[in-house]
């Protein structure tokens, strides 16, 4: 299936009423000509690859969004309800780390679907609902039984029950397919879902479960929250935490069962987990997570139903999950806190900051080595100090200039870097952090002086002002580092910035005369 804008344009062009309307309003001839041309091209091409198909495609889109069709309405409504209940229940599944349980449950219901069909002799939603629920409960009981009576761990028992029940389900499904009425049975749709095959009874059932989920979560939000976060504490307060746990599990089971027709047993758990996991990346509050997960659930459900409808009844489940996965990918990349892109950007900016701070420190050190005599620092001196080619240093300085704390001036054919007061303050701060930390390690932590430099190289960039104050207090406002160099103190630096007395003996904080 191709999503080509050309298709749409050609279709518009071909509807004569549109062309006429455009002409009547005296649209520029050029537009008309283009449209005519498009129409011609379309009909020419249409004649080649089959006019029918294109008309069908656009009409399908039209039919879907106008919801004129009863089938579309049912499918759409079903997907919306499904998105809501999957989003809500899925959020609880994700924060309670029950994803694997959800997966097992959704596979375990399959034999129940088949047996429900066999007992009723047709695709009877109620019989299938009952069969699926019973099978789901049975699967859950078995997981617990294995866990309780053996020392097999929960993940293994979940895996076994999942595969075992699913296997039985597939065998039974095959039986049904081989029955005389089998090919028309529609049970195969329970594997991968078909929203268009939803009957109105089924939509009512999905709607009922969604409504129940919304109402219960709204009314008992706090109970579900505390039961998920700290069930022991809930019990310790005398709250009926066990009851709410079972209520949640029951809602989950019903959600899975009624979603089967639309999403299919194989992928229900994905519709539970993926929208909720996407929401989990975006927010740090449970109520927002519930809302976001529902929105993502609805979006994925509707999109899946839409593409399934367009693609002449492609299975809905995989398409919904595809839509949900796309949402997740976007969240994964662009979530403000946890997103890959924002994390990468944060790292980049941190690296840039560290680089600039290192440059500032080097400028300080060059000035220090000259007894803070000159105000400017020669680029070549800086390059030597940083042990790099002058071209690299020039780039480094250009970066620093871009942050607005430094000027680069040409004096007699040589480049000099001048820090402004802000830059000087920052340079002093980095040097102070470095030397304070070294001193702390040697004095308080009793490291040898030759062990401390590398550590300080890292720490100097991350020490906050509060920590620096604490360190200064702890070390009794020291003036020299373990190597005998001066430590610019915060107070000194600030004083030197406000009162520049030209003659004062350099402790390193005198500002260059601007």
């Amino acid at each position, binding site marked *: 299936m191709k999503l080509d804008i050309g298709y749409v344009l050609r279709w518009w062009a071909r509807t004569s009423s549109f062309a006429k309307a455009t002409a009547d309003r005296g649209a520029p001839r050029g537009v008309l000509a283009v449209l005519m041309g498009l129409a011609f091209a379309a009909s020419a091409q249409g004649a080649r690859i089959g006019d029918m198909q294109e008309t069908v495609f656009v009409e399908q889109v039209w039919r879907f969004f106008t919801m004129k069709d009863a089938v579309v309405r049912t499918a759409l409504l079903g997907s919306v309800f499904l998105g809501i209940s999957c989003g809500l229940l899925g959020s609880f599944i994700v*924060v309670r780390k029950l994803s694997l349980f959800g997966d097992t449950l959704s596979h375990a219901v399959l034999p129940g679907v088949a047996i429900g069909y066999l007992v009723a002799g047709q695709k009877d939603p109620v019989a299938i609902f009952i069969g699926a629920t019973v099978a789901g409960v049975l699967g859950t009981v078995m997981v617990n039984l294995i866990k309780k009576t053996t020392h097999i761990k929960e993940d293994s028992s979940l895996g076994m029950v999942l595969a075992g029940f699913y296997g039985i389900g597939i065998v039974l499904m095959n039986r049904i397919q081989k029955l005389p009425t089998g090919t028309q049975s529609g049970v195969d749709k329970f594997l991968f879902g078909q929203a268009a095959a939803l009957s109105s009874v089924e939509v009512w059932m999905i709607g009922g479960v969604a409504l129940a989920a919304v109402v219960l979560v709204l009314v008992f939000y*706090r109970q579900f*929250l505390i039961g998920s*976060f700290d069930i022991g504490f809930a019990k*310790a*307060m*005398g709250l*009926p935490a066990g009851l709410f746990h079972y209520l949640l599990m029951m809602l989950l089971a019903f959600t899975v069962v009624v979603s089967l027709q639309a999403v299919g047993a194989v992928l229900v758990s994905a519709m539970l987990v993926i929208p909720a996991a996407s929401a989990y990346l975006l*927010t740090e509050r449970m109520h927002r997570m519930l809302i976001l997960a529902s929105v993502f659930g609805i979006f994925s459900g509707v999109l899946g139903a839409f593409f399934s409808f367009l693609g002449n009844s492609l299975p809905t489940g995989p398409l919904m999950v595809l839509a949900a996965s796309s949402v997740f990918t976007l969240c994964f990349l662009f979530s403000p806190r946890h997103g890959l892109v924002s994390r990468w950007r944060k790292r980049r900016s941190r690296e840039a900051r560290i680089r600039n701070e290192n440059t500032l420190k080097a400028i300080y050190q060059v000035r220090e080595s000259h007894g803070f005599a000159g105000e400017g620092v020669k680029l070549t001196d800086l390059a030597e100090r940083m042990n790099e080619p002058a071209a690299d240093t020039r780039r480094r300085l250009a970066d620093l200039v871009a942050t607005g704390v430094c000027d680069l001036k040409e004096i007699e054919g040589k480049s000099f870097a001048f820090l402004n007061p802000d830059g000087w303050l920052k340079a002093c701060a980095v040097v102070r952090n470095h030397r304070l930390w070294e001193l702390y390690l040697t004095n308080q932590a009793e490291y040898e002086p030759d062990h401390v430099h590398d550590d300080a190289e890292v720490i100097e960039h991350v020490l906050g002002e509060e920590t620096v104050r604490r360190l200064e207090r702890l070390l009794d406002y020291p003036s020299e580092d373990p190597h005998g160099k001066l430590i610019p103190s915060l107070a000194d630096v600030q004083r030197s910035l406000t009162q520049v007395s030209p003659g004062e003996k350099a402790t390193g904080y005198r500002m260059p005369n601007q």
Partner: protein
Amino acid sequence: MQEVPLETHDLTVAYDKRPVLYGVDVQVPEGKLVGIVGPNGAGKSTLIKAIMGIVPTTGGWVKVFGQSFAKNASRVGYVPQRESVDWDFPVNVMDVVLMGRYGRIGLMGRVSKADKEIAAESLDKVGMLPYAKRQISNLSGGQQQRVFLARALAQESDLYLMDEPFVGVDASTEAAIIELLRELKNRGKTILVVHHDLPTAQTYFDMLMLLNMRLVAFGPTEEVFTQELLQKTYGGRLTILSEVANKVREAK
């Protein structure tokens, strides 16, 4: 007549039929700061959980202020072990402390302004008010512990059960918390604290409960904190034993 905050009789607990706690009889008087000590796996957490009905008991009974726990649950505050929850859970500090009010709010009620004020006060008492809006995963271990303590304070209970509230807490915070507990005690509250450090246990608590799958001893600290009883409690673990024995000797 003075109420007995906590009384157990022949309390027995088993996990999957494996008994971990046998026949514990205790009667905790009002207004005491009680330490529960014992080696790892001694059943300290289990005892606390059994008292509150979090784990089912296989025998005996528990009375809280003369009645079943269920009747008086609102008079009991709880600080679970920090590892018992997932600290990546999408809630912030205030959300967690407000949970301490849920028992009083009831199933359907709403969180009132008064509840929020009480939660804020509790946070303030443990010095965590500035962190109220912080997501809980961004807290250090000691801060998490303080949040749990604030949640228990928000419960406004008469009996507190605390499971290792000092794990991961720095010395100054520990001192502040002990100060807080003493203040609660002076207001007539009864506090049971599971504690791992024996030397400080001796100074912190009025009474000690020595536990190792059974109740080894329970009584005023000066009577119970003896080399003989500690040896009984920690029996078989020579390294700990000698270490403790030394400390005991030092203390005397």
